[in-house]
């Protein structure tokens, strides 16, 4: 699941409280489905346990709200690695593709490198499905066709996104600045 890595990515901007992370996550990636607080704190606790974030208590009192989280070196390299790695080409990847591109733009990382890698992975899968379809029976071919059309739709989105990266980066920067 991409929530831990997305939160980790958001933390790379600056150390943050759980509340701020949830708010930014919802603004960028929620689209009407907000992340429950419980999940945010549970995720942060797991990330801290794994050494990917460090938590500092900066306000007196108890409770998760009092802690400010910062990404560790290990966490940073994990985000870096994730943003560079294409997803296994399958239909219905829109949210993951979207998340990787937007997070890369927020962090000023190369979204193009990721999109190129993803394009290559998609083309390779389309090539396999096309070869299979040429040699398979018509029922299997029908299933291969379904996969091919979905992968093709992803590829069109990848091409269009790549062509719009500059204006997207601006839009996301403005979006970030609007946040209180």
């Amino acid at each position, binding site marked *: 699941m991409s929530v831990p890595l997305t939160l980790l990515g958001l933390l790379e901007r600056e150390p943050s409280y759980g509340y701020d992370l949830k708010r930014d996550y919802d603004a960028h990636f929620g689209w009407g489905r907000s992340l429950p607080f419980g999940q945010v704190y549970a995720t942060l606790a797991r990330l801290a346990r794994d050494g990917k974030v460090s938590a500092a208590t900066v306000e007196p009192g108890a409770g998760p709200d009092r802690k400010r989280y910062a990404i560790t070196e290990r966490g940073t390299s994990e985000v870096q690695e994730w943003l560079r*790695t294409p997803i296994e080409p399958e239909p219905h990847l829109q949210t993951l593709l979207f998340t990787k591109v937007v997070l890369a733009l927020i962090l000023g990382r190369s979204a193009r490198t990721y999109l190129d890698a993803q394009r290559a992975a998609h083309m390779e899968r389309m*090539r396999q499905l096309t070869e299979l379809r040429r040699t398979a029976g018509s029922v299997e071919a029908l299933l291969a066709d379904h996969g091919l059309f979905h992968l093709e739709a992803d590829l069109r989105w990848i091409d269009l996104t790549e062509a719009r990266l500059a204006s997207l980066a601006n839009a996301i920067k403005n979006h970030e600045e609007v946040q209180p």
Partner: protein
Amino acid sequence: MSISTLGSEDSAGPMVEGRSLVKSFGRTPALNGASVAVAPGEMLAVMGPSGSGKSTLLHCLAGIFTPDAGEVFFDGRRTDRLGETRRSEMRRRDFGFVFQFGQLVPELTVEDNIALPLLLDGTARRQAYASARSWLPRLGLDDLGPRRTGEVSGGEAQRVALARALVHHPKVLFADEPTGSLDSLTGEQVMELVVTLTRAEGTTVVMVTHEARVAAYANRMVLVRDGQVTVAQPPAAPSHPADASATRRRPPSLAR
């Protein structure tokens, strides 16, 4: 004598290669240091957005355009410095061409069009027509031989163009948007024939297309961007573990 029969023993090298190709039209740069190599028997898809230079690259490799700088090789021999006579001979004998619009001669029959490359190269008329007719069943054009090409459908015309491109058993087939004017089903039939026939003949294929579904018929894909060639490497590493639960484990076949 064709360029290809001048005694190359080096079968390990590329069949077609462009090195650091530069080509401008007036002040508009089309290629800006494009390099690509195509192995013998390989089918390469050249993709890229409109105006990226992908067609110019194909035209340079095929000896239709001369690059402003860089080198073009065919079967190990440099071709961009050949005179127009030698280059035109190479195009006629060693290469076959399929373009977006068949570019057939509409007043001539299907058979005439297919026999044309052989006739132009001095093959006896009877032999040329026998060869042309032998291609008709391979392309599902059995009864169309005597029809004028102006009267056949778009898909049929493109199959005639494919037969014409392959009738003289070229070493390389250059295809520029071969399905660009066809609907997707007809386009797939044409691509199926391109793959079947060129594999059977051992023909090297360089195909320009902007359609991923068409490019997926090739063994390999390169992307032309801003006049340069990007080699798209499929990732060696598997997906990131964090993405694994988003996609189900998949056996090597189609089954999910």
